[in-house]
């Protein structure tokens, strides 16, 4: 290894006018926001929402969550031209400081299966003041029990912690929501991955 990695540093409390300007109504553009899939994207349109809780169980109002996910066919869309034509961006970014309950929320489509023997899921990164290194996790879906039972990575998680990764489907007046909270610490501490 010729060069050492540049250390990670915290995103701090004041990221919003740089990274999530549109969501927080600052006069700057975004490269990603809470819309992962636009209305024209193929697939079942869903909202993913939840809270981030600290070791006291207090809701964190200055976290930033990013999601990177496959489209409804299980394909990752890296090419910006494909993003523009399909309405599927794959990337989402949301701060927890604008929702009345300090939730993160993403409008997207349910991802397809990326490879045989895996369950659908979205990749998640958690950033916040108080984290010098961001943490990777995943959200799986509770109505995919059969596939979840065969997913190698989910099954590699100790059984008593697996539920921390599974979002719960709720039918609301405005559509389908999957709800999941991220617990940084405590009995229900979310499983984070070293990817």
């Amino acid at each position, binding site marked *: 290894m010729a060069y*050492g990695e*540049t250390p990670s540093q*915290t995103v701090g409390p*004041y990221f919003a006018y740089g990274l999530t300007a549109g969501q927080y109504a600052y006069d700057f553009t975004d*490269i990603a926001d809470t819309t992962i899939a636009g209305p024209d994207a193929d697939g079942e349109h869903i909202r993913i929402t939840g809270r981030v809780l600290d070791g006291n169980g207090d809701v964190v109002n200055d976290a930033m969550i990013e999601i*990177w996910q496959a489209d409804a066919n299980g394909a990752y869309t890296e090419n910006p031209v494909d993003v523009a034509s399909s309405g599927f961006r794959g990337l989402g970014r949301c701060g927890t400081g604008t929702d009345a309950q300090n939730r993160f929320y993403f409008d997207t489509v349910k991802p397809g299966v990326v490879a045989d023997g895996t369950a659908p899921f979205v990749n998640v990164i958690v950033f916040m003041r108080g984290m010098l290194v961001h943490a990777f996790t995943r959200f799986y879906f509770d109505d995919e029990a059969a596939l979840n039972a065969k997913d190698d990575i989910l099954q590699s998680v100790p059984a008593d912690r697996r539920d921390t990764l599974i979002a719960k489907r709720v039918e609301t007046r405005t559509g389908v929501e999957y709800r999941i909270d991220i617990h940084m610490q405590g009995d229900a501490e979310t499983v*984070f991955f070293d990817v």
Partner: protein
Amino acid sequence: MSTFKPRDWGSHAPFIAPGYKSTILRGPTQAPLAIKSGLSEGTGPRFAPASVRKLDFDLTKNGITNGEPLGERIVVHGKVMDTDGRPQPDILVEVWQANAAGRYVHKLDQHDAPLDPNFRGSGRCMTDANGNYVFYTIKPGAYPWGNHFNAWRPNHIHLSLFGPGFATRLVTQMYFPGDPLLELDPIFLGTEDAAARERLISKFSIEKTEEGFALGYQFDIVLRGRNATPMEN
């Protein structure tokens, strides 16, 4: 597509670094579970040059309302590469920072220092074919924070990059050489390895300094390298 080498945890801070108090209740207490990386980690968002507008890379101009921002103009050059020294082209770099007085535009920043009507403090740029990026800005000021008595953050600029995959995601801070606050700053010191910490400090460069206009700094960024063998699909 190939996968990325594992993160070198020796180059990074632990999740809980008690000197930085906010980590105590916010850092995970259990070690992250290692997973075999695949498509989901090896892919990541790409950005078209069009996602960077004309003035995005010039923070001395992109927040102007009625004049020039106050403070010391600087130009920051850097190369984004991986741990094998391979330049990383077409990488989006997002930046944000306090103004010359040490005040952020953010609505929750209550520090009693003036806002600058001509400086917002956020921008972005992309690396070229050789992995080089450049942005213009104002040298950010130091500011107090509540971590401990008389705590002051050293001058710093926040940078955010995806790199070539979701696994290479990096958010970091660039510091300035010779800053006496560095050895007192629990965020900088959160990285326990002194040699790794040095990589957070930019270098003053008279070659990059622009005659009569702006002091030059060099800040190279090193992301995880790729494994030699392609992943199995």
